[in-house]
């Protein structure tokens, strides 16, 4: 019965919209044989021609960002127990598949469709009107569809980040419904507010180069909420649940770092000087943060650790994300050093103190790092780096810092409340957490009927 309900929700969320969209696009264009061709026909007046260099870079950047989600899967997969590793990998891959479809059907329209409301509206549902000519309000030199697919990869990785908080204990069906609802009711609106035409945070002047608020704070807060309400993992009381394969985690970190060049340098939406600046500061901040965390470990725990260095590097990448297009390399070093200090404090002190089981420290790294990054943008941003940006507090513009604080607070507040409502509704209908017995056996065998490793051949 519960399974049936879950399937019904999925059906309502995907298959029906898909059908409606198809019918609409189809009938709207008369006898056009395929919706894709029909949509191109509506964009008959190409405003500008795409630039080949910009287009080439953005295609590569999109592929780089796509690789981050499997990278994240390994980053997380290495940190869980060996009975749950497939569960984590599966959740990441599921999001890659599900959000790719959601984005084409209606996610892109809700996020980036022109409109001043809660969402961007339904104008571009099914990519109707999203053609190959550039759409100048977002990116004047690349095809509109390329901008769409680049943004798709951001929409994919954001819900995937949350997985780390409820790892090793969430029911797969509940996870699936949560992901779709969260993408629709949290990611899409926040994305619209910050990046969409007519989005109110964008019009207020909030700077978020590549997704500090939209991606990291947003996901980090949702992660915090789920970690609190789903409860602790069995056996997590009083001692750590050990990572089963740290080399996986390091591999994942490397893939994330690599993909992040697409994430940040790609967010300039062109092969230009801002992209180069973003590339340089991204690498610099990651390096500074990785090093700082290792040093903190060395000082407080006697030895530098590999997991610590990897965690620091990811924290640095998170923090530089909103700032990448606006700050200099020297500012990036400071952003990197401080993010590791803040995140270490969150992970090693705040978490044990309050006792929530944020299994893989999504809140501690992504939310804390994201908030620091958003605020640091308001401190270190400089028009000398990017004339289209703004000056931050340290460059004589305290107002920018205030705007960053407002954008951060709005994201934190909205994401927490909306995620909470979604979580509770799902919990009432199909129960979010797996039964205790399944948790003991592990998610691989109970949720997927597979196991990652054999003991006997």
């Amino acid at each position, binding site marked *: 019965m519960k399974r049936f309900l879950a399937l019904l929700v999925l059906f309502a969320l995907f298959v029906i919209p898909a059908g409606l969209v198809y019918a609409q696009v189809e009938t709207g264009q008369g006898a056009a044989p395929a919706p894709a061709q029909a949509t191109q026909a509506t964009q008959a007046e190409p405003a500008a021609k795409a630039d080949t260099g910009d287009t080439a870079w953005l295609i590569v950047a999109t592929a780089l960002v796509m690789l981050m989600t499997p990278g994240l899967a390994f980053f997380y997969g290495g940190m869980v127990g060996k*009975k749950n590793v497939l569960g984590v990998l599966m959740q990441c891959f599921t999001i890659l598949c599900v959000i790719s479809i959601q984005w084409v059907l209606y996610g892109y329209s809700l996020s980036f469709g022109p409109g001043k409301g809660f969402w961007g509206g339904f104008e571009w549902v099914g990519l109707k009107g999203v053609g190959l000519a550039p759409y100048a309000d977002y990116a004047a030199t690349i095809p509109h569809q390329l901008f769409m697919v680049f943004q798709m990869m951001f929409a994919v990785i954001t819900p995937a980040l949350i997985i780390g908080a409820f790892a090793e204990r969430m029911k797969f069906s509940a996870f699936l419904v949560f992901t779709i609802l969260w993408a629709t009711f949290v990611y899409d609106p926040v994305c619209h507010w910050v990046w969409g035409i007519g989005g109110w945070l964008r019009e207020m002047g909030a700077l978020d180069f590549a997704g500090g608020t939209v991606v990291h704070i947003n996901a980090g807060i949702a992660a915090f909420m789920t970690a609190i309400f789903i409860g602790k993992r*069995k*056996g997590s009381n009083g*001692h750590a649940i050990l990572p089963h394969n740290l080399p996986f985690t390091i591999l994942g970190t490397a893939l994330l770092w690599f993909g992040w060049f697409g994430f940040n340098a790609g967010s300039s939406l062109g092969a230009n000087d801002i992209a180069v600046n973003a590339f340089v500061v991204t690498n610099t901040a990651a390096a500074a943060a990785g090093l700082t965390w290792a040093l903190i470990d060395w000082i407080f725990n006697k030895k530098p650790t590999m997991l610590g260095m990897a965690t620091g590097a990811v924290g640095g990448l998170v923090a530089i994300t909103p700032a990448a297009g606006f700050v200099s390399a020297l500012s990036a070093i400071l952003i990197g050093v401080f993010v590791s200090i803040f995140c270490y404090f969150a992970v090693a002190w705040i978490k044990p103190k309050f006792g929530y089981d944020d299994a893989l420290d999504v809140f501690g790294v992504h939310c804390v790092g994201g908030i620091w990054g958003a605020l640091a943008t308001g401190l270190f941003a400089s028009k000398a780096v990017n004339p289209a940006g703004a000056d931050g507090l340290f460059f004589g513009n305290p107002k920018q810092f205030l705007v960053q604080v407002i954008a951060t607070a709005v994201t934190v507040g909205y994401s927490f409340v909306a995620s909470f409502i979604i979580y509770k509704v799902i919990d009432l209908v199909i129960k979010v957490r797996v039964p205790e017995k399944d948790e*003991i*056996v592990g998610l691989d*065998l*109970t949720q997927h*009927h*597979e*196991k990652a490793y054999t*003991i*006997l051949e």
Partner: protein
Amino acid sequence: MKLIIAIIQPDRLESVKQELYKEDVNLITVNEVLGHGRQMGLTEVYRGVKEMGNLLRKIRLEIAVNEDFLERTIKAIIKGAQTGETGDGKIFILDLVECIRIRTEERGGEAIG
């Protein structure tokens, strides 16, 4: 001297260890093993091919004790491992012929503790 071999559920290891520490039993050997008793196995499916995996993960403890430690060790294992469900495991007690500490070449009961 006795050798205690206990087969327990993997998730009970931590609580069994805690119970053993409370009874001053600090020397144990732990193995991950596969086995099955009355407990049903779990279905596995690989590319549509079903596999009835009836071997389940268990933990095997080995503890060598002198007679005066035997009962409290058994009690500690039971206290830590018992849930009342099928699959809680078994405890086997064997006579232990000899025990030698390699470092000192001590033998018998003295070498155990």
